[in-house]
């Protein structure tokens, strides 16, 4: 049991029309935050009678593409053009966002592992609990925006996590196709509902997808554009925004999945050192192909080590920092699957 106790309140009126930009008041009486509150940003843009979507970024604090895209959307979205409700939390794990780190500095909580959270628990748990108990019940759809963070870079992609309910799965697939990333990673069904995505889908039957939009603790105009256009396509797909005749067809996506062999789609560093990659993101590699070379950092007279890919596939994520420790992942690969295999 965690001894840390916090609570959340919110003065947003979720039923009100128009644009509200405010914050959750997270109360956590530690050495720094007693007699104050932690203001977790939230915006609601509502008009008409259409469906509700929640958009989240900063679920992991060092993933910036989603944080930037959603901050811009809060300012740019015109409530008059909305038919329904868009709830935006651009810095879901706000304490982690402020520190530019993956997990919360307040309780070491990883927001994407602790749904449905806990009322009165530690800060990350109470934030998750608020979302799970107050926001998800309002939603028809949820999109959680991730990227590779400080350690990784991903091919910009949608993560489509499979669920057992075939109707829900069909809606999730339609939403992933509406986003239209060049790549959609299909992840097998699990019993867990600990992530934002599966907390919404398995916990509440909400149509949810997540994205991986780049990484390396930064953002580029290209990844921001891919994310923004994908979200707007999803909003039009759900009927929250009007169809746009210039952009009414979704770009075709390529479906991939990870193999079943445990660890078979990851290359791990067998020794510590300085990593020289031989391969790049998006490249197709073969089983036993050399991935790169780990040079000893201290003694260059020692021979470097060349790990190999445990299975063939397309590289969908790469490690960013050049210095590696034994056990660190270097590359993630995935294999093409057909759309028919997804259900």
């Amino acid at each position, binding site marked *: 049991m965690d001894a840390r106790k916090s609570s959340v309140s919110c003065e947003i009126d979720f039923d009100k029309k128009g644009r509200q930009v405010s914050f959750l008041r997270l109360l956590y009486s530690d050495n720094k935050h007693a007699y104050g509150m932690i203001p977790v940003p939230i915006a609601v843009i509502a008009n008409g009678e259409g469906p509700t979507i929640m958009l989240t970024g900063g679920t992991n604090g060092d993933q*910036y593409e989603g944080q930037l895209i959603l901050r811009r959307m809060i300012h740019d979205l015109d409530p008059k053009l909305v038919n329904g409700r868009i709830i935006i939390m651009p810095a879901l794990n706000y304490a982690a966002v402020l520190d530019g780190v993956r997990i919360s500095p307040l309780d070491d909580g990883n927001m994407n592992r602790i749904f449905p959270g806990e009322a009165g628990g530690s800060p990350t748990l109470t934030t998750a609990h608020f979302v799970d108990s107050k926001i998800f019940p309002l939603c028809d759809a949820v999109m959680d925006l991730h990227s590779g963070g400080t350690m990784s870079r991903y091919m910009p992609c949608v993560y489509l996590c499979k669920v057992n309910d075939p109707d829900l799965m069909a809606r999730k697939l339609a939403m992933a196709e509406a986003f239209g990333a060049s790549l959609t990673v299909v992840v097998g069904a699990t019993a867990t509902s600990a992530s934002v995505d599966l907390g919404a889908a398995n916990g509440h039957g909400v149509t949810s997808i997540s994205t991986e939009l780049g990484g390396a603790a930064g953002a580029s105009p290209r990844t921001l554009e891919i994310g923004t256009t994908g979200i707007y396509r999803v909003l039009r797909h759900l009927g929250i925004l009007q169809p746009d005749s210039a952009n009414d067809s979704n770009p075709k996506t390529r479906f991939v999945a990870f193999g079943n062999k445990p660890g078979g789609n990851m290359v791990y560093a067998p020794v510590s050192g*300085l990593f020289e990659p031989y391969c790049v993101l998006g490249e197709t590699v073969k089983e036993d192909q050399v991935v790169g070379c780990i040079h000893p950092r201290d003694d260059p007279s020692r021979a470097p080590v060349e790990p190999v890919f445990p299975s063939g596939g397309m590289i969908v994520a790469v490690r960013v920092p050049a210095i590696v420790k034994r056990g660190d992942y270097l590359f993630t690969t995935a294999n093409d699957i057909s759309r028919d295999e997804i259900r």
Partner: protein
Amino acid sequence: MDARRATISCDVEFEKQGRQISFLRLMYPDHVHDAGIIPIPIAVFSNGKGPTILLTAGTHGDEHEGQIILRRLLQDIDLDAISGRVIVMPALNYPAVLANNVISPLDDGNMNRVFPGEENGSPTSVIAHFVDSVIFPLCDAAIDIHSAGTRGRWIPCAYLCKGKDADLNRKKLAMTDAFGAPLTVVVGATGSSGSVDRAGADRHGISTISLELGGGEINPETLALGTDGVNRVLRHLGILGGDTSAPPQTRYVAFGDTAGSNQVFISASGLFEPYFTLGNAVKEGQAAGCIHSLEDVTQPTVEPTFPSDGIIVRRLTYAIVKRGNYYFTTAKEISRDEII
């Protein structure tokens, strides 16, 4: 004056023919290193008669491309193919390399600011002094390999730092042309000789260049560009024989003369949304990106602008910015005729 005292010794024989891979013994009797040495990697490959070149990387510890390229070269070099001598130091500021930091954790020394160093000074200045007093006098040429470190990225480029000697400038220009980077940044003469590059040239009359080979994420393309360029320089100098086909054409650029006129100044801390990236041509007054408040999403955003026209040659890659950061560096194209 710095109270830290270190000494250095070396069992490499610079006049011996053949392959030697060893280390400088840096002695620094602090709490951690009193009963040992700090082994700074050095390799010497010597065969026949010909010029001597010093190749250095890890001058800043968090700049990894050169460290990888030189470690690889040290494993792969064919001694029989050499006419002359190649001295390789892939981790020049070794304590900074191990700490993955720009400067040394032992004395906060920036290896590219302390030349010519000091004989019994702090660790960084003692290493610099060894290079300046023992190695540079043996050299005809030197290449010091940098990058933008872990938080930024350069268009891969050669730095041509001009000195007062026109003949030496011509030799340096021939060397950057042989390297054949996509860009060559030409920098005017200064009074300082604190860097590896300027100490080699200004103090010893050696033909030196330095490189900025990317940064941020390591990619095979940049490593290949650096390795190919270094090999072309070795052929240009006659240290390696073989193919002397024309190097890729480089573009020459220079910075403006006014301080900060080529830098996008971040006026507020926050989360930065870039509108441009490396290689883009930009205009004076154009918005470079948008600074969002990390804390308060209702705050108006700030759009810093480019202070002058140019090409973006360097950018930061981290999204979190602090007031005072230079997010983008731009440069203007110049003709080759303007250089000397």
